[in-house]
């Protein structure tokens, strides 16, 4: 079955587009359609790790599934783990479908959400929003829980991710590992005290908060052969010592780390997720950096100043879709009314685009091979 990603690849770039990575290759593919994010990592020997999920405009399947099909890889057994870094709807769209398509894949979520209370919140909000056509975090998680409830699936011991927890081991010559860097134990303890108010809006009609807090996000470190990747999720830097990026830097698990060669920039490149010490302590000088845009804001992320700041730290900054926003569709007789009633308006989903980085794990110091597809650009 053919996926749809071939549509997004310009003819000049089609040459090696649909060639699957070899067993000795580490691949990091970053999808980011404008409001959403998904990372697909080949850890060697056909083992894939999926971080979050998103869908491209007009697609019915998650980006990760479509991509694997275009590579002629059967996703059923290929994806070994799925990590939901946090619960924001731009990171979970299509997650339930990935788990249905890949029944062997284990899911991991933030340890800050551990306990029955999170399940209860999800099911209650999903029930209330059944009549709304737009999908939401609650809808996705509720579908996952419904699926597990139907099949009576037992959930793995690595279900709740916390700093230092290995989420996967295997891959290329059994050297591949994926380890959670967050949330910190203090974050988890803190979140337990008022999970409902941290996750949900306060009124009677409850819904999930969209923008905060992101210190519960699961950032991960990927190791395969001599290559290291740092995937920042939406982890923010809120200034407190035991939370967010500060906690990652201060953690007891950090003393043995080698610096990472590539970085998925945290929280769409926003300034509140930026930490100078992360670039200095956890990353090689001038690493490959990939950012995904977020256009559900009047000034979409990354802003011009975000791009300037990140480019001051690396010359290899790539974005999955650029520009982050585009003009809305023109509709005769409608635009005039909408223009009078709105201060600003733009289309959220940008053009299809993604960034693919491959490393040859047989080499001692492999050079990253960065490929850009569709609307992806180097900034």
């Amino acid at each position, binding site marked *: 079955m053919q996926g749809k990603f071939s549509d997004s690849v310009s003819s000049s770039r089609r040459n090696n587009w649909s060639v699957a990575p070899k067993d000795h290759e580490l691949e990091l593919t970053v999808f980011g359609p404008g409001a959403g994010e998904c990372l697909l990592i080949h850890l060697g020997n056909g083992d894939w790790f999926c971080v979050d999920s998103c869908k491209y405009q007009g697609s019915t399947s998650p980006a990760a599934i479509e991509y694997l099909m275009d590579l002629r890889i059967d996703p059923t057994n290929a994806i070994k783990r799925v990590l939901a870094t946090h619960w924001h709807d731009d990171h979970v769209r299509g997650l339930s479908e990935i788990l249905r398509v890949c029944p062997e894949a284990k899911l991991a979520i933030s340890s800050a959400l551990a306990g029955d209370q999170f399940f209860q919140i999800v099911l209650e909000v999903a029930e209330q929003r059944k009549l709304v056509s737009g999908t939401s975090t609650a809808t996705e998680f509720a579908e996952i829980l419904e699926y597990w409830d139907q099949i009576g699936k037992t959930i793995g011991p690595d279900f709740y991710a916390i700093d230092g927890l290995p989420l996967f081991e295997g891959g290329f010559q059994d050297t591949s590992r994926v380890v959670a860097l967050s949330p910190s134990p203090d974050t988890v303890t803190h979140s337990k005290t008022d999970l409902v108010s941290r996750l949900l809006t306060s009124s009677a009609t409850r*819904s999930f*908060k969209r923008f905060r807090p992101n210190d519960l996000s699961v950032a991960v470190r990927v190791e395969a052969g001599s290559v290291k990747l740092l995937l920042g999720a939406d982890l923010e830097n809120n200034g407190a010592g035991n939370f967010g990026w500060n906690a990652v830097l201060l953690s007891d698990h950090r003393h043995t780390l080698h610096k990472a060669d590539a970085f998925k920039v945290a929280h769409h490149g926003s300034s509140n997720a930026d930490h100078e010490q992360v670039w200095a302590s956890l990353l090689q000088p001038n690493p490959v950096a990939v950012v995904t845009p977020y256009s559900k804001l009047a000034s979409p992320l990354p802003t011009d100043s975000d791009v300037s700041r990140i480019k001051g730290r690396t010359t290899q900054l790539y974005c999955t879709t650029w520009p982050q926003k585009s003009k809305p569709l023109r509709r005769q007789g*409608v635009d005039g009314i909408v223009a009078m009633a709105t201060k600003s308006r733009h289309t959220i989903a940008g053009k299809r685009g993604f960034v693919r980085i491959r490393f040859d794990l047989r080499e001692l110091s492999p050079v990253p091979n960065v490929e850009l597809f569709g609307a992806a650009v180097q900034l």
Partner: protein
Amino acid sequence: MSVLDTLTSQTASDRNLTTKRLDPDDWFKPTLDEQPANRTDRDNAVNADDTDSVEPKRWKPPVRRSNLGIKLDGDRVKIEQQWECIVLDVGDGVVSCEMLDLTDESNPSEFAEVYKTEFSEFDRQLLQEGSVFYWSVGQIRKPTGQIRRHSEIRVRRMPALTRTKEAEIARKVQRLGKLIQAQ
């Protein structure tokens, strides 16, 4: 004619009544009133032949209808575009939202900052992150045939969970908790 026959014939007559359907393209045309005019004395004169009255019938002028046959019914609205909007943030003067196109779901979703003044006072109180409103844009035809632009925003009221549903969720959560503890 028996009473039963009379009733039967009335029923058949009622069945012959049909509902007039308006063509979507003709909705702005005024509709002529098709109800029969009031019976005149001329009609009465015909019926009078059956009676035994011998008095001569006097001619009376027909009753003139006041609205010249044009039926002035209510406004008609033609929706051209409709969105389901999910509130992302409520600011001082604007509401940031994600707009999902209900008219054509294949269209990309949009971000918009809608002025709060577009909402009714009652709806404004319901605006918060996560709430949902529907925005319809189109044309409205007044009874006089005048056409105006139309925009309507309504905030959705979410139903509260019933006790039965809450109990059902609690049971499901308990089952799911066991699936995790099984490891």
